[in-house]
């Protein structure tokens, strides 16, 4: 049996020490207490890091603001950094268990899947709108090929540009809003929560005395409302709108001092930015002044027309019965009656053209003589005086002139080729006198009986020293002097 000498004992101790050292080294490597190893080569030793590069890479990835993920060849999620978890609102554990594509809405997953399909050889990038929880995030997604130990995976980065996109949208919206305000033809006013005008279209210049922006709406536009509108004044309207209630087409009146009064339709609505709380109100005003004037005139004309139709029918009835009474035969009636109605119609035509305003004496003479004389005939002369006749005078005077001209055509100055008629007019303080003087016609004799024509002439223009008509049948021509009271000419 061999004994163990001192040298052998020393060898055993050394071997035991080396064994313990080897075990300690293995244990340290297994427990992750070292991160580099020295590997002996032929002539030189080399140092290899254990996981150092990966740790640094991961530390770098975690420090990035970009969301980053690594997928293997089967598109299983290998790694997702904290920024990506924040974007999706999911924990890293949840993201890893569900997988990246399954954590996305189907549409976004399909789009990213399409990018991955194309990213085997080169980097792919696209801007996507991804549903993250309840929010829609705008992301630039880039997919690049990622070499792995035994296969190829994909590196995906997500750049959240939601705030930039929203800011651009807000800026665009602001530009559109400004363009609308600049282009609007109608007055549009925007007020803040205190009722102070912050924006106004250029069209308000016609309604506001001076700039409106910066002033209270009620001061810039002191509106007056009808009692039954339920609105007291402009301040009340702003208060109601700021309270969340919309109003449309409320009639209002705006006094502009020397510039007159404008009739407006005013609408008001609360202004909600981004669909949230009320931050002000929007007022629109439509100027109805001209339309209201037209409506009032239309209303007046309808009443006037009704009145005149009744008068005309009464007059036609009287003309009919009196013409019938004075006619010697039915054929005589058939000749006289239509002409008198035509004379009445001619005056009416003039009045309609003048919208039932005043006619000139000249217009009336031309209209009544037109059926019997060529245009611009010099056989009838009349004054150049600008004499205006209201409708209540023009209608009977037109009938009188008709009777005179028909008599002249039958028996007087217009019954031959030489006769002429001089019509004159002279203003007196109390009346206007119009003279009808015939000359050059056949010798005139007093009619044997007074017909309807003479009656109409004598009665149509009234009675008294300042009104009425007198006919003289002088041998050298008929003379008629007509007086119209000055009060009837106003």
């Amino acid at each position, binding site marked *: 049996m061999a004994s163990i000498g001192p040298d052998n004992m020393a060898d055993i101790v050394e071997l035991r020490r080396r064994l313990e*050292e080897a075990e*300690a*080294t293995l244990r*340290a*490597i297994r427990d992750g*207490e*070292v*991160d*580099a*190893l*020295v590997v002996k080569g032929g002539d*030189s*030793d*080399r*140092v290899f*890091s254990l996981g*150092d590069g990966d*740790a640094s890479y991961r530390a770098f990835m975690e420090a990035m603001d970009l969301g980053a993920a690594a997928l293997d060849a089967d598109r299983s999620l290998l790694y997702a950094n904290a920024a990506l978890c924040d974007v999706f609102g999911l924990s890293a554990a949840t993201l890893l268990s569900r997988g990246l594509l399954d954590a996305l809405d189907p549409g976004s997953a399909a789009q990213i899947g399409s990018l991955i399909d194309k990213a085997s050889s080169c980097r792919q990038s696209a801007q996507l709108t991804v549903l993250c929880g309840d929010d829609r995030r705008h992301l630039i997604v880039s997919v690049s090929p990622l070499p792995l130990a035994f296969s190829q995976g994909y590196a995906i980065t997500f750049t959240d540009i939601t705030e930039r996109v929203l800011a651009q949208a807000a800026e665009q919206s602001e530009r559109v809003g400004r363009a609308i305000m600049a282009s609007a033809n109608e007055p549009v006013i925007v007020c803040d929560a205190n009722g102070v005008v912050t924006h106004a279209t250029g069209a308000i210049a016609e309604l506001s005395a001076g700039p409106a922006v910066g002033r209270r709406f009620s001061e810039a536009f002191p509106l007056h409302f009808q009692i039954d509108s339920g609105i007291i004044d402009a301040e009340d309207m702003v208060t109601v709108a700021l309270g969340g209630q919309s109003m449309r087409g409320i009639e209002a009146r705006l006094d502009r001092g020397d510039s007159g009064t404008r009739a407006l339709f005013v609408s008001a609505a609360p202004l909600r930015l981004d669909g949230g709380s009320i931050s002000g109100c929007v007022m629109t005003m439509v100027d109805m002044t001209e339309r209201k004037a037209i409506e009032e005139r239309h209303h007046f004309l309808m009443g006037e027309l009704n009145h005149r139709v009744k008068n005309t029918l009464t007059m036609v009835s009287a003309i009919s019965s009196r013409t019938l009474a004075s006619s010697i035969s039915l054929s005589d009636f058939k000749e006289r009656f239509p002409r008198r109605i035509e004379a009445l119609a001619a005056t009416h035509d003039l009045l309609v053209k003048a919208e039932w305003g005043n006619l000139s004496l000249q217009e009336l003479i031309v209209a009544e003589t037109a059926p019997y004389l060529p245009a611009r005939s010099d056989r009838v002369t009349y004054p150049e005086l600008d004499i205006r006749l209201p409708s209540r005078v023009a209608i009977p005077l037109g009938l009188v002139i008709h009777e005179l001209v028909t008599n002249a055509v039958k028996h007087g100055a217009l019954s031959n080729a030489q006769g002429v008629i001089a019509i004159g007019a002279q203003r007196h303080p109390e009346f206007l006198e119009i003279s009808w003087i015939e000359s050059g016609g056949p010798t005139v004799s007093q009619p044997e009986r007074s017909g309807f024509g003479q009656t109409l002439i004598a009665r149509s223009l009234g009675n008294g020293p300042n009104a009425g008509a007198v006919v003289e049948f002088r041998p050298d021509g008929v003379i008629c002097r007509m007086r119209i009271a000055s009060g009837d000419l106003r």
Partner: protein
Amino acid sequence: MSSEDMNDDSGGEPLKLTLYVAGQTPKSVNAIRNLERISAEHMGNRYKIEVVDLKANPQLAREHNIVAIPTLVRSLPVPIQKIIGDLSDTEKVLVHLQLTPPQ
């Protein structure tokens, strides 16, 4: 890279320590910081420390047959002692270096 730190203004047997690191790996950086702390708190004023960067000079690993990094070698007093790891376990370090842990 190597560095030395020697303080010998007190009595007793001096400590000679060599810390082998590999550049700026996290474990190497931690080992340097932990050794600085332990030396300040437990080694008094009589020790000599050398830090060897094997990444820059891998051949220096042969002197103490270094395999894993970081490794701290106590060459004095004999026998040689090796501590593998980043020296974060202070008690383990003090036991291996045969220094008395604080009470």
